[in-house]
């Protein structure tokens, strides 16, 4: 596996110290890390899953609009962060885990862009409402 950029390494190190659940993806949308608080919400440990490609992530975690919460302006925040290179926030999303547990979460995502304006990935912070 090729070495991650130092910016992504530092994002991961920071995430590993935070109380808020954090998930880190690369430019392809592959999940490259999530921290222990995120493990609690997602119901799976990172050591068990390792990297999760986008298709596998869709199978394990379905994140969709909560029909009871009203529409959000944006689409999925991580997609917005990666495709539009800007932060995005969703106040009410329904997370359906692989074990079919449903959770309502709030989620903020932002792109990781280096000093040369190169997109390296994105970070999602989320929490149960």
């Amino acid at each position, binding site marked *: 596996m090729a070495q991650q950029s*130092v910016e992504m390494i530092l994002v991961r190190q920071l995430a590993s110290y935070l109380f808020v659940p954090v998930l880190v993806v690369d430019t392809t949308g592959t999940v490259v890390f999530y921290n222990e608080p995120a493990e609690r919400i997602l119901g799976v440990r990172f050591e068990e899953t390792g990297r999760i490609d986008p298709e596998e992530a869709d199978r394990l975690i379905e994140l969709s609009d909560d029909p009871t919460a009203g529409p959000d302006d944006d689409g999925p925040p991580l997609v917005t962060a990666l495709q539009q290179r800007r932060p995005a926030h969703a106040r009410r999303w329904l997370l359906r885990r692989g074990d079919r547990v449903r959770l309502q979460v709030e989620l903020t995502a932002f792109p990781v862009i280096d000093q040369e304006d190169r997109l390296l990935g994105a970070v999602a912070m989320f929490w149960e409402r």
Partner: protein
Amino acid sequence: MKVTPYGVRGSLAAPGPATTRYGGNTSCVRVTGPDGAILALDAGTGIRSLALELPPGLSRVDVLLTHLHMDHIIGLGFFGPLYIPGMEVHIWGPASATLSLEARLRRYLAPPLFPVRLRDLPCRLELHQTGRGRFVVGKFHVRAARICHPGPTVGYRIETDGGSIAYLPDHEPALGARHFPMDAEWTSGFDLAQGVDLLFHDAQYTREEYPQHVGWGHSTMHDSIVFARLVGAKHLVPFHHDPARDDAALEAAIGAAVADLKPDFPVTPAAEGKSFEI
């Protein structure tokens, strides 16, 4: 390829009788290629002496800056080739998010910090921004990449047909790692240093000193050895010696780290004028 340190000290020059064996100048290393091309790695106070030993008739010299902290550029204004009309001087180094390399260097090479302005230098000066990427100087194939240190900082990997060196003088790959080293994918500097013949690496602190300096951008001697082991370096050259450590204390501290970790590769602390042939 011949590699000669002219400055091995970190943070601040530390000349005097207590540092004569390893030297008191700040970071500067000369790399001489098989075709005679010369690289100066960083421009600490050691670069003044480096300039005095350049071969007569040299028409080009390349200065590769890892970052713009003062101990790595303070010698630049005293680098003789800058004042030779017609001499081709190429300076490579990182820009920041908002300032070009030239704008950043101008902050030092201009009054009130320095009497001569960058634009007034008589040499043929060319500046190149090196965030990440590859470039060629003579027979040298150089690769730059960002590494973990406060502010825009790169490390360099330099290869010729005959061998390779990596130069990461200011580097804290253990920053934030709960267990160092992590695997290669998540270790700053791994790609630059993987399998090199000679690794110049930050080893400023002892393990006992490190907790008071976390986040300052430097490594312990132990972590330097652990990093060299992870990347498979064939020879480690601990570098960026703390200015407060005299020769005897430096040898004792590195000797203790080597005795503790028992690396299966040579560990030779960088000393001014002690060359390595690859």
